[in-house]
């Protein structure tokens, strides 16, 4: 299986690389469009800032490429936020795979960013296969995606929000599976094992 990590100006790509290697997978870290398009699984990681990341993706023409991907894609943290339509982080237009807007946690109730281990619940899809409800995973984020029809995992921080979202072949998690111990490793393993989805939109477009 060819697993590709999208290379861009966001941190922690190496952590994802290491996590995959611990599972015996040697990922390709690349911004080469052909290498990304031909992969079986694509990981879109990210620790960073939304506007500089989007700027970079646009300059490299990776923005359109990501939106058009048809194989399972896993967005992580900033990667998940960039898959949404807009982020309040420096008022950034994002990729728009999900129409949700990314908001900053209201500071009145909680410390921002949220840093640490918290539980996830209302788990859906095979991404969370064999992961118990209320499992602890590691979060580091100041912005969030609200609870919505695409939510496949929830968490709480002052408010209830999406710890994971999914639409067609696009999966995304707000937490860091690559840093979430044994549970996180299992989630990455589950992602690698996901069946290739046939998406209604893409099927229609191709027919």
């Amino acid at each position, binding site marked *: 299986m060819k697993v590709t990590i999208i290379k861009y100006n966001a941190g922690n790509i*190496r952590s994802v690389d290491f996590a995959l290697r611990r599972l015996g997978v040697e990922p390709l870290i690349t911004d080469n469009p052909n290498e990304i398009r031909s992969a079986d699984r694509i990981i879109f990681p990210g*620790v*960073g800032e939304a506007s500089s990341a989007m700027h970079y993706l646009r300059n490299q023409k990776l923005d359109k490429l990501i939106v058009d991907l048809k194989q399972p894609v896993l967005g992580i943290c*900033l990667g998940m936020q960039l898959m949404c339509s807009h982020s309040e982080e420096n008022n950034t237009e994002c990729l728009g795979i999900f129409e949700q807007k990314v908001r900053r946690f209201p500071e009145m109730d909680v*410390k921002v960013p949220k*840093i640490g281990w918290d539980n996830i619940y209302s788990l859906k899809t095979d991404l969370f296969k064999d992961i118990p409800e209320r499992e602890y995973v590691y979060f*580091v984020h100041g912005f969030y995606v609200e609870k919505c029809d695409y939510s496949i995992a929830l968490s709480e921080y002052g408010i209830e929000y999406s710890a994971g979202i999914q639409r067609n072949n696009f999966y995304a998690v707000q937490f860091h599976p690559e840093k979430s111990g044994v549970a996180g490793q299992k989630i990455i393993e589950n992602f690698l094992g996901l069946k290739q989805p046939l998406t209604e939109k893409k099927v229609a477009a191709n027919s």
Partner: protein
Amino acid sequence: MLTKRIIPCLDVKDGKTVKGINFENIKGVGDPVELGKHYAEMGADELVFLDITATNEKRKTLSELVAKIAAEINIPFTVGGGISSVEDVKILLESGADKISVNTAAVRNPQLIKELAETYGSQCVVIAIDTNLVDGKWYVFLNGGRVATDIKAVDWAKKAVELGAGEILLTSMNHDGTKDGFALDITAAISEAVNVPVIASGGAGTMEHFVDAFTKGKADAALAASIFHYGEVKIPELKKFLAKQGIPVRI
């Protein structure tokens, strides 16, 4: 519910883990890669890796060691020591660090915090503050505690957060290595003054000290080195103890 974090700290000098008593009399206590892996398996919530003698010539050695540790562990990992530029941070993040911790260079050049936050996001910028009680007031100290300043710790913490710091790692030099407990008053004062997580550091000796850090000290995380390295407090037992006291922890 977000849990309180237990963070073993690996102070590293020339590739080996060491722990100073009041930042002096350093002696080696083990291989950082082995220790890091061990702590991850024991249930540590995070690791902090401080290169206490970092110099430019040793930067490459540090990034290689960071890569070795990151390859072995599946929990978050902060790296600090001698970081003074965006380029330094780039190398460490590329080596596998999740967050970076800046101390002296941020005081000397506060704009560095802004630059780092704008480039990599606040969530990976930890500002480490070494503080010492002088005439009843907590002041910031630099260069591993060797250089005094007239900056008050609370003021600096506030400014650092305004500039984009995502977390404060507060070490009380008066308490570090004493095993008499954390500096609860200044930890609580900073935790209340800023709206980012505060890691209490310096002085852990017993499991009760951790309870105090999270309750009276209002800390979000507690860091210790020697008591973990020497097995005086074991992380699984500590977490059970904290849970019994009603403190949310990941078990």
